[in-house]
């Protein structure tokens, strides 16, 4: 449905988006995820046509839209600040796109009523934007876009100005709505939890580049870059020198058949298991999070190690545990070098495996 190819955009010498490419299938909800300044909003605006890119193409249903003006593209955008027009009431705001297209009054009224019903705001048709709460205003903004039946719905951090509870509720509503309408949607957010909950696939961006694209689970389990690994979910990071296929991990030496050099070793808190040959660490803090228990340990090397375990396995303060990683990601220079499943501790130096 939507294809982005090698989009680049530079503002006054600073590249905001670098060579970004990905595809979105019909009916998919794709999240553009990344920290502030990573270029995700710029990319969204390039897709909408409000901002022109320096090079690259934007195609919708196979048609190259790069040179097309924003008001002629089959996209509609929900802004962060809802951007409702204060001099029009809700119905007039929603009907604007239809009026611009020259539809007859009766049809406008019918479609407006239908879409307001869809977002649950039928009773608010005559209200003014000033009388709406934040959540209601965003729903109207969404309705305003839905009513023109765009091929691609674009959303620029639409919920970030709302409080957490409201955000979660709107998220669910959006997912349900989007699924029902089979509407291709691109959703920009800096909140990785939001992306994980909403997206069919996530496009992770950093520094203007697309780091990785994939379903939430895949990104979580198999991050392909250091940036993605550290941005999504929590990680225990240990930087170490790899020599002769062996590397030191929090005081214990592990076998790792990779070329020599510095590596960043990352491991998820829940991927640690108790093993007598593991790294020794003293329990410093036990945090009861409710569904799981988070344990902060201090290793022999003085580093912090975080372990997530089921409630019934929660250890006592001060106890020394020995832990080994079940899955260990190794990165060098930001790129993935290898993923070790249950790496074994090496024997004493000089011995073979």
């Amino acid at each position, binding site marked *: 449905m939507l294809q982005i190819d090698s989009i680049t955009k530079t503002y006054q010498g600073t590249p905001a988006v670098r060579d970004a490419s990905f595809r979105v299938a019909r009916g998919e909800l794709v999240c553009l995820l990344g920290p502030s300044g990573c270029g995700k909003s710029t990319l969204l605006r390039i897709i909408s046509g*409000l901002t022109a890119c320096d090079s690259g193409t934007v195609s919708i249903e196979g048609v190259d839209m790069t040179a097309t003006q*924003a*008001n002629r593209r089959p996209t509609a955008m929900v802004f962060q600040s809802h*951007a409702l*027009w204060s001099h029009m009431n809700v119905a007039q705001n929603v009907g*604007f*796109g239809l009026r*611009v297209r020259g539809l007859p009054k009766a049809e406008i009224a019918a479609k407006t009523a239908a879409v307001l019903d869809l977002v649950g705001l039928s009773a608010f048709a005559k209200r003014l934007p000033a009388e709406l709460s934040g959540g209601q205003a965003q729903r109207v903004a969404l309705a*305003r876009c839905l009513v*023109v039946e765009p091929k691609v719905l674009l959303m620029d951090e639409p919920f970030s100005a709302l409080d957490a509870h409201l955000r979660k509720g709107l998220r669910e509503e959006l997912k349900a709505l989007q699924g029902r309408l089979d509407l291709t949607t691109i959703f920009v957010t800096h909140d990785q939890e939001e992306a994980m909950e909403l997206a069919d696939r996530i496009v992770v961006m950093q520094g203007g580049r697309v780091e990785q694209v994939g379903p939430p689970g895949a990104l979580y389990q198999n991050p392909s870059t250091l940036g993605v690994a550290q941005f999504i979910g929590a990680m225990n990071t240990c930087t170490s020198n790899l020599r002769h296929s062996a590397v030191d991990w929090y005081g214990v030496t592990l076998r790792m058949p990779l070329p020599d050099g510095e590596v960043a070793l990352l491991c998820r808190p829940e991927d640690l298991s108790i093993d007598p040959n593991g790294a020794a660490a003293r329990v410093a803090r036990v945090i009861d999070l409710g569904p799981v228990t988070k344990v902060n340990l201090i290793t022999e090397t003085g580093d912090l190690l975080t372990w997530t375990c089921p409630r019934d396995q929660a250890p006592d303060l001060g106890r020394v545990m020995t832990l080994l990683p079940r899955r260990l990601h190794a990165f060098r220079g930001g790129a993935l070098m290898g993923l070790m499943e249950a790496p074994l501790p090496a024997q004493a130096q000089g011995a073979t495996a």
Partner: protein
Amino acid sequence: MKRTPFGGLILLVSMGLAMLGPIVTVILWAFAVKWRYPHLLPTEWGLKYWFAMFGRETVITPILTSLALTSIATTTAALICWPAAYAFARLKFPGRQLLLFSFIAAQAVPKFALFVSIAVIFLKLGLVGNFWGVVVVQMLSAVLFMIWIPTAAFRGIPPALEEAAFDLGASRLRVFVLITLPQAMPALAASYVLAFVSILFEVDSALLIGAPTITTMPLLLMSLSAQIIVQEAAVLCVLIWVPCAVLLLLSRRFMTARGIAQGFGA
């Protein structure tokens, strides 16, 4: 540095007297049939002079002339200035800063001296004593109001409002007409009222360019004030000025103090 309420009260009373006293006097005279010295208030009230004024052509004509002149001048100025204000607010073009500044600089020119220079030219062109000559000069005064406040108004509209309309399919012109103008309208209307009232009461241009053929309402007021019947000038004041003051008051809601101060570039 908090002052006692007593000091504030003194300030209030003296300011009340100084600011409102003169106007109150005029209002009293407008409704007085007889006001003999040394009485503090009119000795006889009535609307006698209101009725006396309205039959007279020498009163009606200048009022109508003024209204016509001012309406035409202000409206034309609005039509040419508001799009320009949008350009100053949103578009990048060479000389933008310089040109915007030139409107501030124009404020530094003493009006009367300027009108002298224009009068000399208009004399040769036969535009003195001409209706359209006065319109053109009044437009000049209007232009100064109609650039700064509208520019500030347009700049104050969040860009997302216009972007959203464009995104939904409207052309640039439609965005301007359907979204930008209505959003800026309160401030634009306020600048219109401000310009209108200011021009309506302008003496300098009317005297230099309009006289003797064109008599405007302020000139009428000046000539009436020199006459023995005090009430007539007072009636004219109340009749014309009070509605204007009310309009200005209403429109002030849409112009913050900063807006006015900025209109002078402060």
